[in-house]
């Protein structure tokens, strides 16, 4: 990797110090060793990011692989990602409420109820799939809107109204299904085709990977250009090049491996796109900034002129809508809606996924990617235990232990951040 100094000289002929590096107290980052040190320092001060969950995922994978080599087969990876997606979508909504320091315990019930509404409209009422799905999403949106009003106007704690929702919408699911009990979705339905049987063709997948990495590299280079133009420091281009190269090699290898079997499922790709969009919205838009601000210090946000109630409204509405969407996708994958849809452990899996992925329970800290990483961990545990024929009792215990570990890591890193002044 090129030395930082030569990079600065190359991009800035006057070689003057960038505005943001002028303070003499700042520790300069130079060369590969400098960036490595920066990384270690950040870890030490509790800025763990997604490292614990990535390490966890690797450990879990190796453990199951040593017990049953089929765990890391192409088929298994395709299945894990495909089946992770629906609850992953729900977990994405949970990330949002957690960022505000709130909770939504009813996402499972909402997903079940919304999918039942969809199934009834589609199968019993003969509506088109588009109308049925839109109706399900509208149900989610309406529920979230009611939650927001309860929270902002009446001051009901989110724990309480979502607990009420957990029970209430489970009842609504039974009511909508009526005496039928189970509604099967016709197998030629577009939803089923999409969720169960659509996989990205080999060529398309490689083109996509290259396009994604190219887009990533382009935005990075553009960012560096803009910062240099504004006389601000920026990471060396060599670092970007190395990152992009690693990304390209990693994604191509992974894609090649899953293409041995059926290839990436469109369901998983859909989920990943949703995660990336949510990440952009959270980090790069005013709305996302305000979500973090309200989660960090609500009073400060209010005094800054942020419409705090609107932020709560948007987040509760999005969470319930994503729950409904997750429910619809789950039905597509499972081919039917039953009285058990969204009831058993959907709630806690979704919440656990967000927390395991690294979103803090204390608000103001987390990322959209934590939903993805967290649900991969939980789905990997489930598939692995199924593969080695372990009873579901053990699965619950293992999941509980992993959740406890994740929250413990969150609490410990929070304390490390406090003592090293990183908030």
């Amino acid at each position: 990797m090129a030395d930082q100094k030569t990079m600065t000289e190359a991009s800035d002929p006057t070689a003057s110090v960038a505005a943001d590096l002028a303070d003499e107290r700042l520790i300069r980052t130079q060369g590969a060793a400098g960036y490595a040190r920066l990384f270690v320092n950040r870890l030490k001060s509790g800025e763990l990011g997604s490292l614990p969950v990535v390490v966890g995922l690797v450990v879990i994978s190796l453990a199951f692989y040593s017990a049953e080599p089929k765990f890391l087969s192409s088929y298994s990876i395709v299945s894990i990602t495909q089946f992770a997606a629906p609850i992953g979508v729900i977990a994405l909504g949970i990330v949002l409420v957690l960022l505000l320091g709130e909770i939504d315990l009813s996402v499972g019930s909402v997903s079940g109820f919304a999918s039942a509404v969809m199934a009834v409209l589609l199968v019993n009422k003969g509506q088109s799939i588009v109308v049925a799905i839109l109706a399900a999403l509208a149900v989610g949106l309406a529920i979230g809107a009611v939650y927001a009003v309860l929270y902002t106007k009446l001051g009901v704690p989110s724990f309480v109204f979502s607990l009420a929702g957990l029970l209430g919408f489970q009842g609504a699911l039974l009511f909508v299904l009526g005496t039928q009990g189970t509604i099967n979705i016709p197998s030629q339905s577009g939803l089923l085709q999409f969720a169960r049987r659509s996989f990205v063709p080999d060529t398309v997948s490689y083109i996509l990977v290259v396009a994604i990495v190219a887009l990533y590299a382009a935005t990075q280079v553009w960012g560096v250009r803009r910062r240099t133009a504004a006389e601000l420091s920026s990471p060396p281009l060599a670092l970007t090049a190395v990152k992009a190269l690693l990304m390209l090699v990693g994604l191509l290898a992974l894609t090649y491996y899953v293409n041995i079997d059926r290839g990436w499922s469109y369901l998983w790709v859909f989920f990943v796109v949703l995660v990336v969009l949510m990440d952009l919205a959270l980090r790069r838009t005013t709305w996302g900034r305000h979500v973090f601000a309200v989660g960090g210090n609500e009073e400060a946000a209010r005094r800054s002129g942020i419409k705090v109630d609107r932020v709560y409204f948007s987040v509760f509405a999005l969470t319930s809508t994503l729950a409904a969407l997750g429910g619809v996708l789950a039905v597509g994958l499972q081919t039917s809606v039953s009285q058990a849809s969204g009831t058993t452990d959907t709630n806690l899996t979704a919440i656990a996924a967000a927390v395991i992925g690294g979103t803090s329970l204390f608000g103001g800290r987390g990322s959209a990617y934590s939903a993805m990483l967290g649900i991969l961990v939980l789905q990997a545990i489930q598939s692995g235990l199924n593969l080695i024929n372990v009873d579901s009792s053990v699965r619950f215990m293992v999941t509980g232990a992993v959740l406890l570990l994740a929250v413990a890591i969150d609490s410990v890193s929070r304390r490390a951040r406090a003592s090293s002044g990183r908030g």
Partner: protein
Amino acid sequence: MTEALVAPAPVGDIVLSLTGVTKRFGAVQALSDVHLDVRAGEVVALVGDNGAGKSTLVKVISGVYTPDEGSITFAGRQITVGGPSEAQALGIATVFQDLALCDNLDVVANLFLGQEKTSGPFIDEVAMEKESWRLLRTLSAKIPSVRIPIASLSGGQRQTVAIARSLVGSPKIVMLDEPTAALGVAQTAEVLNLIERLRETGLGVILISHNMADVQAVADRIVVLRLGKNAAEFKVEDATTAELVAAITGASDNVVAARASRGPTPTTDGGHHG
């Protein structure tokens, strides 16, 4: 964003004027017939004992409370302030005592919170960071990096960020509520320097403080509130600490103080000005 720093208003014009402001909370008369003028390029210190009505007055000006009676004239227009964001839009910035910063966000994000610069649908981080450095340099502020979370800054640095934030959006009046309350000696001096720099740029500054030394160091005029009323007003060069304390505590109102202030020969003048 901060045109006020580039083209200061002519010094001496009255920017903010309160007349006959009255505010009641139930049976408590928090403010009665309070008047206050603030000119551009002037630091007005608002002092008074606990319960004198300083905070109520600040909240009236910043739009948190609506006064029961009285009028507020701002930049020659009579106004009603409907809320904190409305006050900000008018050009009245408030730096609250408890800072109101988000610990989990970095300096740039805090400076522009609620007033983010955008390009298209996205936040323009580069423009915001550049403007942050310009703002902080205008105040000669010492912040090592604007990309570190607020939590890692010292008390004085946080106060600096809070004051710098009040300048985003080119205000005409900046109100500082106890800006040096929790600060050390050197940090207090830094904040006092900041206040002087605000004055130099032509802003009207209202400084609320309990600390007489701070007030006498930077203020041009000192307005004393007592029991919700204007008790006295001093030019800073005329005021001695003893006189200030007397006005704040009301010690000059009682018989003994009145006799003492008259001295051996009776005068017609009262114990204090205003």
